Each structure stands twice: as structure tokens, then as C-alpha cells.
């Protein structure tokens, strides 16, 4: 049982001394024993801080000050000593680097038990039960933690928390960075946990399919309202940061107020729309005529093979050619070889077999610096790769290294700042920005290099829909101006919306290379590679309507549905 009364949180401004920024204000809610509260909100609304505050760890281990009261099973968490709550409140953070620090799976789970002083003889049973409760097999006990996949590590962190037999479990963005497949497995584990135990759960995540499946009620952190999960849809219509299904249906409902759709999850959306009589033209749209002259090739890869350890192939015999100006999405489960492939384009990895050509030149003969002038490369977790005293200096770093003239440099920096809406922050230290602004700062510093090719490794992970749309708009503009784009992503809707070609990697092999409509229809390949269908296509298939599949953007889908509603 959690009761929160008039809770406000302020944290010190990172830029000016002695000023405080309000994160959330005057929150009151209650979670009954055995219930589950979902929390959603855009980037920067304080989901993480709220989780830490409920566990009694913020502001004492972070910075900031609070007002109001939090009682968990009748104890005031902010008054009890830090660490008191370990066997009452389990906490699983978004960032696992601070959560998993032992060698093997069993040591990881046993670590917390040791702090509670549980006798060694009682440990194996507890460890096994916790592992099972988190949906992990017994066989993993002796495995090194680093061998586990991202999804398994997430569930291990949950197991380590459950082993302490808490009465409350707090999860901060458990789906962050997981592939669609791993997300669904996690969802199953949580549903089972709710069915089989009396755990009180707080689940902060913007994956609404997960929340509606698991939570009883949902708190909207940006305005502090709480709704029960059945009527979440009414609450999200006006909020741009939610799910694809919601954004499509909000457009439909906005246009046709007479028609009430109360659906939210992909599944439910499909079920409800199945009853809609489709009157639209069900012919696939005619494909745009392809250009007559052969386009220039931006990237050509022949028989590319790479292995990190000489035994397992991270890439095997990859062949492909990408013309200048194409927007390519690269999909696949964690560890499928996507990043390994992309690193070859900038010379961070050199082909062990085969050839990589960038703008017609053999990449093996070019230095990383020379390739950097051709390929702007955004690394995973780019928000942690920032080091300058001001954002302006950070952005100048790349183009400065490439030897831009002062005029061109100023122009590039100004354009980049404007593109990402960061002008107001230009003279502040970027490492002190919020997570999403640090990500945008990293993207803007690559954008300013004005390379003909962009390669981006999961640039939208952790960004809310509004920020994702900003990144999407930047990429489409880049694309419209003739730029070539390679985008590695787990966001199927994002890929379907922007890309004109989809590559799917599976265990080092390129198994699908097609236009999005065809690629996402290749069911067997998608299952094998852990890739999910985007919402629009799932809907199109459910309605057995090929025309819908012709335009996978939310606008296209909404437009089509509106046509069907007549």
C-alpha cells in the first residue's frame, strides 16, 4: 500500500546557482496492496525521479528537495534511513549499469540477500524462486551476467529485486532499449507476477500496450491525473507522446467526433476496427516510376564477413548496394550484427573478408578521418559522448576537425541548433542537459558535419514520441535534400514511417532486403529475427486491405480509416 500526499519535487538548476526547477507538483495518489500503478509522461516529466522518491532514495542519493508525504505500508520512506526499504521496496532502474555488478547470475541475486544477512543455506531456494518469478530458466544460474541478452539482464535485475521478497516492486522504463520480442517476453513475466503474487507494482513506462496489459490505473505525470487503465484512451487522445495506435486513433476521433473508439493496444485496435465497413479503394497504390538513369551508388558491400573472436561470425557474407539518396532502416534482434555492419562504413572495423565501398572508394584504403567526411555516424548512447563546456563548442568539434571554412562552420552550427530547437541552450554545458536534450545535442553535433551519408545507431531509444518526431522530421528533410540514411532501430513504426527500404539482420546474415511493405509482410523472417510488424501494417492485414499497406504513416492510416468510416 502506497499513499502519496501533495508530493512536489524541485531539483537544483544545472545552469544557474541557487535556483530550483520544479519537476512535478502536488501529486496525490494511492496504490492499494496488490495493485499496479502505471506511470506515463514525456521526457523530463520526472518518471525516474518519482520512482526513486517512492523508494526513499531521492532526493537523498541524488539532489533536490521535496514537499509532501509518502507512506509505504505505513512507514514514511523519506524519514527511514537510506537502504531501509531494501526488503520492502524492490527497485529496478532503467540504466542497468548501476544495477548489475556481480560476475554470475547467482552471485548477482545473492548479493542483496547477503546484505540482509540471510543464512547461506537458505539462499539457493530464494535465488531459484526469484529467477523463476522473473521468467528466467534455472540453467542461467552459473552464467556470467555479461553473457545475457538485454532482455534477460532486465529480468535478472527484476529477479535480484524479487529475491529480497519486497512487498512493492518499482520498475523504471523496463522496456527501454529492448527489441519488440524482448518487450513481449517481459510483459508476459509481469502479467504472471501479478497473477501469482500479491506484489504492489509501480510501472513507469510509455509502452501503453504493456501498461494496459499490466496496470490497474495509470498516472499521467505531466498533468498529474489518474485514470483506470480501461479508459486510458480518453486521456491520451490529446497527448502526442503516446503509442502509434493512439496517435492514429486520436486523428480519427479528432476528425470525427461522432465516432467513439475506445481502443488503445494494437490488438484491441485491430479487433475493434475489424467491424468497420471498408468502402475505400482496396487496390495498392501505383508505385512511383523509378528514375531512368542508374543512380550513383553511395555504399556498396560485397561478401562482407566479420568475426570478433575468430569463431562466431558477427557478419556473414553480406552483399548489398545502397544508391545515393536512399533512406534505409536496419532491423534485427540485439546482437544480430547491425552495429557491426554500420561500424564498417566509418572504418572502425575493417572487413576481414569482402569489400566495403563508400561513395565509390574502397573503405579499407581510407582513414577514419577521411571516412568521417563522408559518413556522419551516431553511436548508441550518443548522449553519453559529450565533453565540451558549451553546446556550441560541442557542435563545432566535428566540422572543425573536417576543416570547414569559418563561414560554412558558423552557418552549419546555426542551422543545426535551429533544426533541433536548441538555440536557447547554445552557450550552456551540454553534459548538464536532460537526457533527451543531450541526445538531441549529440545528433545536432553530427548533423553539423553535413556529410552526404548518415549512419545512426538507435538514435530514438528513450525519446518520447514528440522528440522522436523531431528526429524523424530532421531525417526526412536530410533525405529530401538528397542525403543517404542508414538507420538502426527497434522502433518498427518509426522505420515503417520514414524508410523506403528495410534490411533485416539475423545472427550475422542479411535475411531480408526489400521495401517496407514487403519486408514487414515476410512473417517467417520477422519471427526468426525478433522483429515485429508496425501497427499500420498489422492493421492493414487484419482488415485484409492492401491499400492501407501502401502508406504506413499514421496520417495515411488515419486518413484511410476515415474513408472507411463513411
Amino acid at each position, binding site marked *: 500500500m502506497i499513499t502519496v500526499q501533495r508530493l512536489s519535487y524541485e531539483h537544483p538548476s544545472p545552469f544557474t546557482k541557487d535556483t530550483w526547477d520544479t519537476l512535478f507538483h502536488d501529486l496525490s495518489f494511492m496504490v492499494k496492496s496488490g495493485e499496479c500503478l502505471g506511470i506515463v509522461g514525456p521526457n523530463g516529466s520526472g518518471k525516474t525521479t518519482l520512482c526513486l522518491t517512492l523508494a526513499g532514495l531521492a532526493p537523498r*542519493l541524488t539532489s533536490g528537495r521535496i514537499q509532501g508525504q509518502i507512506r509505504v505500508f505505513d512507514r514514511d520512506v523519506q524519514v527511514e534511513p537510506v537502504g531501509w526499504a531494501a526488503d520492502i521496496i524492490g527497485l529496478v532502474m532503467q540504466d542497468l549499469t548501476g544495477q548489475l555488478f556481480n560476475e554470475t547470475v547467482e552471485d548477482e541475486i545473492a548479493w542483496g540477500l547477503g546484505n540482509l544477512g540471510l543464512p547461506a543455506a537458505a539462499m539457493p531456494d530464494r535465488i531459484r524462486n526469484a529467477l523463476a518469478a522473473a521468467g528466467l530458466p534455472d540453467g542461467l544460474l552459473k552464467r556470467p551476467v555479461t553473457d545475457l541478452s538485454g532482455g534477460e539482464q532486465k529480468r535478472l535485475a527484476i529477479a535480484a529485486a524479487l529475491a529480497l521478497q519486497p512487498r512493492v516492486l518499482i520498475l523504471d522504463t523496463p522496456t527501454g532499449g529492448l527489441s519488440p520480442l524482448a518487450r513481449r517476453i517481459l510483459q508476459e513475466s509481469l502479467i504472471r507476477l501479478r497473477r501469482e503474487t500479491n506484489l504492489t507494482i509501480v510501472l513507469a513506462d510509455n509502452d501503453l500496450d504493456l501498461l494496459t496489459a499490466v496496470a490497474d490505473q495509470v498516472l499521467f505525470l505531466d498533468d498529474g491525473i489518474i485514470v483506470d487503465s480501461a479508459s486510458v484512451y480518453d486521456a491520451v487522445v490529446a497527448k502526442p507522446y503516446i503509442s502509434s495506435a493512439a496517435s492514429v486513433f486520436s486523428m480519427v476521433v479528432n476528425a470525427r467526433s461522432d465516432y467513439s473508439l475506445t481502443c488503445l493496444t494494437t490488438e484491441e485496435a485491430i479487433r475493434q476496427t475489424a467491424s468497420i465497413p471498408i468502402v475505400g479503394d482496396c487496390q495498392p497504390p501505383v508505385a512511383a516510376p523509378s528514375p531512368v538513369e542508374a543512380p550513383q551508388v553511395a555504399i556498396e558491400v560485397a561478401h562482407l564477413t566479420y568475426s570478433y573472436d575468430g569463431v562466431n561470425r558477427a557478419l556473414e557474407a553480406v552483399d548489398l548496394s545502397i544508391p545515393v539518396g536512399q533512406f534505409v532502416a536496419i532491423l534485427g534482434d540485439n546482437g544480430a550484427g547491425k552495429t557491426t555492419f554500420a561500424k564498417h562504413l566509418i572504418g572502425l572495423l575493417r572487413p576481414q573478408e569482402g569489400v566495403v565501398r563508400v561513395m565509390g572508394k574502397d573503405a579499407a584504403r581510407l582513414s577514419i578521418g577521411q571516412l568521417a567526411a563522408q559518413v556522419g555516424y551516431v553511436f548508441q548512447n550518443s548522449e553519453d559522448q559529450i565533453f565540451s*563546456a558549451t553546446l556550441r563548442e560541442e557542435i563545432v568539434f566535428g566540422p572543425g576537425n573536417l576543416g570547414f571554412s569559418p563561414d560554412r562552420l558558423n552557418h552549419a552550427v546555426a542551422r543545426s541548433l535551429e533544426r533541433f530547437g536548441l538555440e536557447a541552450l547554445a552557450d550552456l554545458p551540454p553534459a*548538464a542537459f536532460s537526457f533527451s536534450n543531450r541526445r538531441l545535442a549529440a545528433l545536432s553535433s553530427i548533423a553539423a558535419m553535413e556529410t552526404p551519408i548518415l549512419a545512426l545507431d538507435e538514435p530514438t531509444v528513450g525519446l518520447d514520441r514528440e522528440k522522436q518526431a523531431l528526429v524523424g522530421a530532421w531525417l526526412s528533410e536530410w533525405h529530401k535534400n538528397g542525403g543517404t540514411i542508414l538507420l538502426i532501430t527497434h522502433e518498427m513504426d518509426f522505420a515503417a514511417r520514414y524508410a523506403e527500404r528495410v534490411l533485416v539482420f539475423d545472427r550475422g546474415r542479411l535475411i531480408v532486403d526489400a521495401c517496407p511493405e514487403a519486408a514487414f509482410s515476410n512473417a517467417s523472417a520477422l519471427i526468426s529475427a525478433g522483429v515485429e510488424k508496425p501497427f499500420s501494417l498489422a492493421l492493414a492485414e487484419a482488415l485484409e486491405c492492401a491499400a492501407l499497406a501502401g502508406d504506413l504513416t499514421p496520417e495515411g492510416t488515419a486518413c484511410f480509416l476515415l474513408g472507411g468510416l463513411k
Partner: protein
Amino acid sequence: MKFDLNNPRILALTGVMTALVFALTRPIVPTPIGYTHLGDVAIYFTALAFGPWAGMIAGGVGTALADLLSGGYAHFAPLSLLVHGLQGLVVGLIYRQMKGSGVGLFISLLVGGVIVVGGYFLGEMLVPIWGGPSGAVGEVWFNVVQVLVGSVGGLVYLGVLRAYPRLSQMGE
């Protein structure tokens, strides 16, 4: 804040800074005795930013761990523990005493460098398993270069302070 390893925040900070020293004490250029590395940068940073105790632990334990796992120089670990521990401690003390001034920064880097060069020289001279007089004499110049490279740590500290203002709140 009192330096108490039972406080999770201080434990985490000390552990991670020790890890940073350990990670940066990876050989870049092997020299006849030992190797050149960026470990001193991390020691200077820790001592300047978080004071003598964190500097001492991160410097001593971090370099000792690096020696232990370097495959060949493991028995130098106790010497590194003493010398770099003292380096971190003294740099932290001086910088704190001089209230974080620019002069303080310069003096603490200088004294830290003298401790490293002198400490290794004396240790190798006096304790026979560390190579003896020839080792001590031979290594002086490598250690001088090492310390010069390490003094980049002063620049790095100022850079982090500017780029990450929260550092000044983290304290010890």
C-alpha cells in the same frame, strides 16, 4: 560529507573512480620497466575533485589492481599501492588546503609528480625484488615522462568542471 565507505554514495564514487584509474592504467607504450599509461590523469582528477581520501584509495588500489592483472608486473603492486596512494592523498590535501586555487593546482600536480618519481626510485632502490639500483636508475626517465603525461589530469579536471557543473555539488 564525511568520508565513510558505508555510505552507498561514497562507496559507489570511490569504487567507480578506482575502476577509472584501473581502466586508464592500461599499457599504452610498454617501457623496459613497466609501461606508460593515463592512470595518473585519473588519480589527479579524483584527488582534485573528491579530496585526499578518495584520491588515496583510487590511486593506490586502482594502480595496484592494474599491476596485479597486467601479467608480469604483479609483484610491483605493493609499491604502486604505496606510491600512488601517497600521490592521491598529498595532491588532495594540498589542493584542498590551497582552497582550489590555480597555484594550488600547479603545486599539487608538481608535488604529486615528485612523489611518483621519487617513490618508485626509493622503492626499487631499497627493496631488492623490485629490480634494485639499476632498475631504479633506469626507470627515472620513464617515470618523468609518465608524470608529464599524467599532469594532463589538471587540464582534464578543469575541463570536467566546466562541462559538468554538477561535479562541484558531488563533493566528497
